[in-house]
């Protein structure tokens, strides 16, 4: 008979962060948010009819049909979400049962998220496929295509918002239990998404550094970063005052064992480096610096999700609190 590991009597400390969701969930939230954000920006560029440069890539033919790659660098968001979704499946105890995950959409946000992401992936990939293949028999120039595009846009917005709602809906973690968290993840999705579009359009030559559209895109991205910074400040200050566990979570992030994730990953890579490097790149007209700023911002977006997930401390069990009061193990500050 196989031996099983036996744990000692557990010494439950309410300052310990949750251990159930880890880096895999952070990757899932990041790819879903960034992919949805980039699709929203990309489809807006597509709707506004921005003049795009021809792509400097050789022609590719598939099944005797010449692929039109012109819109690929702005509509690849659903691919990112499609890559991110399997990470959620990877985190499940029994992976093949993932299709059961939509049975309780009435109250469960995991089930609603499964549906939201599925609809977005289907419609997003349809729009991407339409931009690649001519689909002449479906009349690609028809105004009716605005309907699936609109649905994809709405579900991209819902996906970006949902990544925060998923954490908020668990209720028992004070750090997550605030409407500011979905707002923070939405702004982060838009900032990382717009930066990802800047990098992909600049890298493929779809938009040149000096084009008007690129300038608008960069200003928009900088505005999203500033809004994200304000929301992050409000989020942390409100959570610090929310409850004992909220305060412990913020402390864990700012001065505890997650301080490197917070100061170097979130603040330095996610905010300071991109802002400073973008300013310098504008001054020296250097697209190389902009690339470094972009990669830094995208990395910071990942650390934001990772830090907030790892800092989630659950509310203290009421009975534990009662015992601690009864035996004078803790004092309430007067």
């Amino acid at each position, binding site marked *: 008979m196989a031996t099983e590991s036996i744990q000692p009597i557990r010494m439950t400390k309410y300052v310990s962060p949750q251990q159930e969701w880890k880096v895999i969930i952070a990757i899932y939230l990041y790819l879903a948010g960034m992919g949805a954000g980039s699709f929203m920006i990309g489809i807006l560029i597509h709707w506004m009819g921005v003049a795009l440069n021809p792509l400097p890539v050789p022609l590719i033919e598939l099944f005797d049909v010449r692929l039109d790659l012109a819109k690929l660098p702005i509509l690849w968001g659903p691919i990112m979400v499609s890559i991110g979704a399997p990470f959620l499946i990877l985190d499940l*105890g029994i992976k093949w049962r993932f299709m059961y*995950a939509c049975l309780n959409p009435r109250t469960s946000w995991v089930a609603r998220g499964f549906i939201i992401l599925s609809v977005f992936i289907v419609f997003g990939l349809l729009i991407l496929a339409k931009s690649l293949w001519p689909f002449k028999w479906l009349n690609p120039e028809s105004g009716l295509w605005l309907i699936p595009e609109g649905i994809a846009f709405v579900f991209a917005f819902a996906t970006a918002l949902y990544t925060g709602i998923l954490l908020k809906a668990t209720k*028992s973690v004070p750090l997550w239990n605030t409407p500011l968290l979905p707002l923070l993840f939405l702004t982060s999705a838009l900032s990382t998404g717009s930066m990802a579009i800047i990098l992909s359009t600049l890298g493929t030559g779809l938009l040149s550094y000096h084009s008007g559209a690129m300038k608008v895109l960069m200003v928009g991205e900088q505005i999203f970063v500033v809004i994200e910074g304000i929301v992050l400040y409000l989020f942390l200050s409100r959570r610090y005052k929310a409850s004992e566990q909220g305060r412990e979570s913020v402390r864990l992030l700012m001065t505890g064992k997650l301080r490197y994730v917070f100061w170097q990953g979130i603040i330095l890579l996610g905010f300071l480096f991109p802002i400073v490097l973008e300013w310098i790149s504008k001054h020296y007209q250097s697209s190389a610096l902009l690339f470094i700023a972009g990669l830094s911002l995208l990395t910071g977006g990942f650390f934001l999700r990772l830090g907030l997930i790892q800092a989630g401390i659950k509310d203290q069990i009421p009975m534990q*609190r009662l015992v601690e009061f009864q035996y004078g193990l803790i004092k309430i500050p007067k």
Partner: protein
Amino acid sequence: MEQKVLLVDQQKCTGCRQCELVCSVYHTGASNPSRSRVKVVKWEQVGIYLPMTCNHCEEAYCVEVCPTKACHREPDKDNRVVIDKKLCIGCRTCIIACPFGQPFFDHQERVTVKCDYCDGDPQCVAFCNVRAISFVEADRAQMAKKKEAANRLADLLKQARG
């Protein structure tokens, strides 16, 4: 049918963890406390032990967040909240949602498990030598006990705040 609940008297508990062992043996066949549905929480520096079991809450967050309805209520069986292992996908959302630190992830079976009152005959109650855990009807007497505990907490809070 009168609903029954598990009642824990923390002052009687000696921290022997017999409840964890019998729970594990009953549910998994293995004598492994880390797979039991009841957990003894302790404050080592003052020697206080508190067996924690599922409260089968009226408004159960685990039921609310479960995406597959694996975690559900059985009104005809002591109104208990149970997890159907055949439906559980092991997403662990219920573990994060429960304010009482309850459902546990069974690393052998790869699903989340929780107290099911051993189908009406809780083994932790049967084997607790000091009677720290009992399976009683949730009648008015228990309500009075709960009120007493709540009042005691309120008094302690007032004292602590001066």
